[in-house]
């Protein structure tokens, strides 16, 4: 037994309202840079839908993840090491920018600077790749809320695996949201695909990262990841991916997406697992057994043997204690209501989901029945094959059994808690019918519905945190590329030594204070008061006087 710790996430899909706050805050924190305009470390997909990039789940086309060979070994679906090296000059399975979308901005400046005329000025979309006018065809959430999906939905890879008949009546049936980040897999196929060895899994917390100084831009990781959560920065020529906000986790803060989640549907915590079992679990023959096999890999943090083994591996005591309090362990292994996304890719993903009961409840309620009555819900779950099959296509390689069990547990909780709300006892038989006790169901209810910040995010801090925090303090602005320098390095965008954050902030601030528009140079001689910091008298604040004195900008 080789015990390792993995930081992981569970998302409760019933609570996701599709507001995209996680995506927006993540983008503001990590990918609001040149070259990453199309990069969404976190995105929220409407299901049924195509996902982002379009149809990424269709591995017949994109060749992500692992496959099991006839001899029972794991092989990268896109080909082994020799094939990788042979196709290194032009990766045939790399999505093009148009499978994501062509990033754009709007000519906002025209709204302010257009001369007075008969027609209202418009801000035309401009491509961020070519700078030319463009017509917007697609984006990261183009089919949001099933918008336009009568035209595109039939291409959803999950639906394609279901029967025709299902697809036709589906749009009247259900819809839900699927927020996605990097899965930080136990058996990451992106890491295995990287020819340079620049991608790695961190020993301490299992976070999968790209070493930016070692990445050579061979692009194989993008193909390797079946979730298409490794992106290629087209300006710097390096791969980038979700970092699980490791600088925040190391000091005990949750990820940006979790912190800002309006529905409070994300849970963060440690899972202890047996690294020796990972290979065998990923290579198990029947796809339907992958869920159980992955659960077998996890270790009970309360088991004294596991604790002793963890200590032998050098896992600190506060981490073991955090693993015992972990909401992830409870949701995955105690209540067994969380399921992995696409276990059939055999990467053993570590961001799990509680499938939504809401499609079922919606149908029951809209047909005039009681959407919170246990018996009605149980009957509906077994009858509504369509959502069930769809969820199974996402979470259990098509096996409806585990999904049905989870939904029945959620239904038991829902109907039981209504009884409690009405001042009656929790109906024990409800819990027994789904293989739990009443107390367990109520504990689960507490965790899913009202758990506080500290219970949702159980994050032990890293153990050298203080020195790292101080590192930036030691940096002054006398850095070589400090104030006064700007623009791209001699070998293209962002070449040269990394700029300390303080210097970057200095430049960003001074650019913001002096720039008039985010789009480009505005009308000369105008000042945007929103950007004026109140100091001095910038040129153009006042109209030029007769002697031109106003143009000098005295301060």
């Amino acid at each position, binding site marked *: 037994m080789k015990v390792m710790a993995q930081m992981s996430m569970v998302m409760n899909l019933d609570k996701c309202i599709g507001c995209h706050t996680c995506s927006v805050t993540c983008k503001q924190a990590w990918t609001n840079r040149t070259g990453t305009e199309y990069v969404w470390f976190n995105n929220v997909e409407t299901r049924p839908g195509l996902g982002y990039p379009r149809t990424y789940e269709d591995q017949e086309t994109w060749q992500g993840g692992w496959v099991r060979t006839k001899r029972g070994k794991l092989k990268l679906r896109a080909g082994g*090491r*020799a094939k*990788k*090296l042979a196709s*290194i*000059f*032009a*990766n*045939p399975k*790399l999505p*093009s*920018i148009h499978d994501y979308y062509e990033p754009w901005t709007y000519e906002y400046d025209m709204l302010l600077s257009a001369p007075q005329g008969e027609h209202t000025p418009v801000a035309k979309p401009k491509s961020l*790749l*070519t*700078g*030319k006018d463009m017509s917007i065809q697609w984006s990261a959430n183009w089919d949001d809320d099933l918008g336009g999906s009568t035209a595109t939905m039939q291409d959803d890879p999950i639906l394609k695996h279901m029967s025709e008949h299902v697809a036709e009546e589906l749009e009247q049936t259900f819809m839900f949201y699927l927020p996605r980040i990097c899965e930080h897999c136990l058996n*990451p196929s992106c*890491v*295995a695909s*990287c*020819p*340079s*060895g620049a*991608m*790695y*899994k*961190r*020993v*301490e*917390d299992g976070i999968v*990262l790209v*070493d930016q*100084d070692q*990445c*050579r*831009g*061979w692009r194989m990781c993008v193909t390797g990841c079946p979730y298409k959560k490794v992106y*290629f920065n*087209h*300006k*710097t*020529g*390096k791969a980038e991916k979700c970092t699980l906000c490791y600088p925040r986790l190391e000091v005990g803060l949750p990820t940006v997406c979790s912190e800002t989640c309006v529905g409070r549907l994300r849970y963060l915590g440690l899972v202890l697992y047996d690294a020796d079992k990972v290979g065998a679990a990923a290579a198990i023959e029947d796809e339907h057994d992958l869920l159980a096999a992955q659960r077998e890999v996890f270790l009970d943090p309360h088991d004294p043997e596991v604790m002793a083994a963890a200590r032998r591996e050098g896992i600190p005591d506060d981490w073991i204690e955090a693993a015992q309090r972990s909401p992830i362990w409870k949701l995955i292994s105690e209540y067994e209501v969380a399921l992995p996304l696409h276990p059939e890719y055999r990467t053993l993903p570590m961001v799990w989901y509680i499938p939504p009961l809401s499609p079922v409840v919606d149908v029951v309620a809209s047909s005039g029945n009681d959407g919170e009555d246990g018996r009605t819900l149980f009957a509906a779950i077994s009858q509504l094959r369509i959502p069930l099959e769809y969820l199974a296509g996402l979470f259990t390689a098509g096996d409806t059994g585990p999904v049905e069990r989870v939904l029945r547990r959620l239904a038991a909780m829902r109907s039981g808690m209504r009884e409690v709300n009405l001042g009656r006892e929790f109906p024990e038989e409800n819990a027994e019918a789904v293989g739990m006790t009443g107390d367990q169901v109520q504990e689960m209810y507490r965790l899913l519905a009202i758990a506080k910040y500290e219970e949702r995010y159980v994050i032990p801090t*890293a153990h*050298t945190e203080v*020195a*790292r925090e*101080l*590192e930036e303090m*030691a*940096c002054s602005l006398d850095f070589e590329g400090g104030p006064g320098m700007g623009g791209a*390095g001699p*070998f*293209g965008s*962002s*070449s*040269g*030594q*990394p700029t*300390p954050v303080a210097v970057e902030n200095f430049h960003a601030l001074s650019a913001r204070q002096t720039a008039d528009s985010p789009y480009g140079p505005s009308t000369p001689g105008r000042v945007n008061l929103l950007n004026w910091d109140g100091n001095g008298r910038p040129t153009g604040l006042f109209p030029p006087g007769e002697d031109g004195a106003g143009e000098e900008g005295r301060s």
Partner: protein
Amino acid sequence: MGLTDASADKIILWVVLPYVTFAVLVVGSIWRYRYDKFGWTTRSSELYEKRLLRWGSPLFHFGLLFVVLGHFLGLVIPNTWTEAVGVSEGFYHFIATSMGSIAALVAVAGLLILVYRRRSTGPVFLATTRMDKTMYVFLAASLLSGAWATVQTQILAGGHGYDYRETISPWFRSLWYLQPQPALMEGVPAAFQVHIVAAMLLFALWPFTRLVHAFSAPVQYPFRPYVVYRSREASVTSRAPRPGWDPTTTPPR
């Protein structure tokens, strides 16, 4: 045939330039690697455009790999060695010219596709730096002059063609023995002279262009375990800590 019998311009071209090129290549690469690890990448533009790249890039790169292999055989291995293993001059010439011509054709075709792609695809052209353009000039000059030298002196000349293994190859090896013999380069056809000078300039430019990605060809990939683990300690920092920030340690007793 030492340094003393050669004229000054020959010494500059065939002694000074090669050594300066070598020094710039080595020192420049070390400097670039230390100064600019982040910029050390292929800068692939495949995300923008795939249709042309899918043909152009493999043609160019594989063609070039065979060209490099051919240069190794022609320049490094003396003709006495090939004769010793029973390869006659005629047979060598036939193999070298035929294979070399095919490789050159493939590489040049690839280069033409790539240059056309770079010029005609909007985002790819916008992502082309001034350094890239300079590099393309010297790359194309080396490749085209080399191809022309083969056509002119090997194919069109008839017979066994020009025997560069009597002149250019010994000169090349003499540089590595540190006993340069510029006189060997007297009378070498102009096409070869142009090719060699263009190639030396390209090598001098090499460390300062995206060509550095050739030095990080992932030859170790087939031999490492699939999944790489790294400890946080080694990976966390973006730059070396400043002096005076070493952590507190207990002194050894």
